């Protein structure tokens, strides 16, 4: 593990064509890392994520993705992801292959990946049209004969998550809603963790999940790096942004202009926040 700038981590650990999982279930979504992937114009990524919300809408709209592996692709509490829809419905800016799962299937696939098993087992994918459209197999219990579903394990090339803290040795702690982040990191061949702050010593927290330094490849300081998602104990969810995103993302030109101004024309998460603040002040 090394504590490095985010730009360096993305440059060295994310390669064109990689299978990349940015995780964070509503909470601690690694937006700063997503922006850096956009800035470095990574291409042909297979993006894995249970809930590809705004972070993947941006990556898809900017043409970074070839395929999406997901279970729920909406703007939470708001509605559609217009860039995701445009890619699927109209192939803009590029066609997007879909591999669609249920939440339970995605969670089992990550857990299997973390456990270094080739598949996860669940009582799911029974009936309906989803099983025919995704990667799932039936498997019989060798003791009872019951038929269950098997999903292939997620083993991303790179897992990326955001956390509240790391210590100087690179041990990471996150708390609050911890989602599937531990599994995403442990299932991945390489991993990047962006953090709100680097402290001398981690203080154990109720509900804290600790990732030891030796399972993480790069720790990057990125305060505010979850915005518009939130970091429990640091800042709240920017609900207004999610609502505003609906209008920004609805129009291709407006989306591109927004990404140019706030992501491509900024160097890092600090400039991104300054850019948003400047825009807000100008209104």
């Amino acid at each position, binding site marked *: 593990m090394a504590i490095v700038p985010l730009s360096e981590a993305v440059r060295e650990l994310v390669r064109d064509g990689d299978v990349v999982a940015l995780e964070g*279930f*509503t*909470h601690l979504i690694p937006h700063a890392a997503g922006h850096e992937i956009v800035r470095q114009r990574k291409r042909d990524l297979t993006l894995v994520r*249970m*809930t590809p919300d705004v972070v993947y809408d941006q990556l898809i709209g900017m043409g970074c993705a070839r395929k999406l592996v*997901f*279970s*729920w*692709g*909406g703007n*939470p*509490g708001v509605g*559609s*992801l217009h860039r*995701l*829809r445009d890619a*699927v*419905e109209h192939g803009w800016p590029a066609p997007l292959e879909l591999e*669609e799962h*249920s*939440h*339970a299937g995605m*969670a*089992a696939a*990550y*857990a299997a990946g973390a456990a270094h098993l080739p598949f996860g087992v*669940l*009582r*799911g*994918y*029974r*009936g*309906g*049209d*989803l099983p025919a*459209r995704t990667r799932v197999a039936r498997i019989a219990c060798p003791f009872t004969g019951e038929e269950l579903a098997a999903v292939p394990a997620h083993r991303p090339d790179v897992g990326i998550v955001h956390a509240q803290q790391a210590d100087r040795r690179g041990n990471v702690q996150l708390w*609050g*809603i*911890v*989602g*599937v982040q*531990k*599994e995403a990191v442990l299932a991945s061949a390489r991993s990047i963790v962006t953090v709100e702050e680097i402290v001398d010593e981690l203080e154990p927290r109720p*509900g804290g*999940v600790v990732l030891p330094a030796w399972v993480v490849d790069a720790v990057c300081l990125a305060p505010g790096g979850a915005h518009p998602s*939130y970091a*429990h104990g640091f800042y*709240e*969810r920017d*609900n207004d942004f*999610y*609502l505003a995103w609906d209008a920004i993302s609805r129009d291709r030109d407006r989306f591109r202009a927004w990404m140019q101004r706030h992501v491509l024309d900024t160097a890092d998460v600090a400039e991104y926040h300054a850019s948003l603040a400047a825009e807000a002040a100008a209104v």
Partner: protein
Amino acid sequence: MSRDGGYTADEMMAVEAARRLRDGAVCFVGIGLPSLAANLARRTHAPGCVLVYESGTIGAKPSMLPLSIGDGELAETADAVVSVPEMFAYWLQGGRIDVGFLGAAQIDRHGNLNSTVIGPYEAPAVRLPGGGGAPEIALGVRDVFVMLRHSPRAFVSRLDFTTSLGDNVRVVVTDLGLLEPVDGELTLVAVHPGVSVEQVRAATGWDLRIACDLRETEPPTQAELEALRALRTKGAR
């Protein structure tokens, strides 16, 4: 959407759904109307109702309506916060949830739901968000409550895609009334005050069965409306 008596159709839906929750029920709650209904139940007749959000919060007690299923207040007020894999494996699949709320873009007469696509899967007219937790919620909880606004586009004779099965659907609460399965087919069992059977038929894309003992739901009480609006003014936008 305002109606006679000073309440909206959504408020009527939320109130009627809330009434169906027994005190102590463990509810898997999605965002939006289901969350509103479950939180209302907890603040009125069912203070012991346990709210479980798929983000991993068990026993959340939000003071205001969360905008997302992963709002910070859910974690802060929960009895326990677990990982998402644990939530789906030990809690939902573990058979520990009594009631699951589902919404959808389309429903058929058997309570099957579509939240995946409008049009063909490979070339959809509308790409919807997808199933999320719904496929396993639909079969993993004892009782599924569906909340869906009535329209011929939503209540269809044939789904464009079957995202989740209707086997455990016990009630569909709409802005016009209540449907329950009778002999395997959703049947109109109640209309909300001021709603006619013809209105409901017109908003349903199949030849809707009407229960012979069709009743009218009770309008929201003042207490229900106040509790509901307190939740919404604090939290909703």
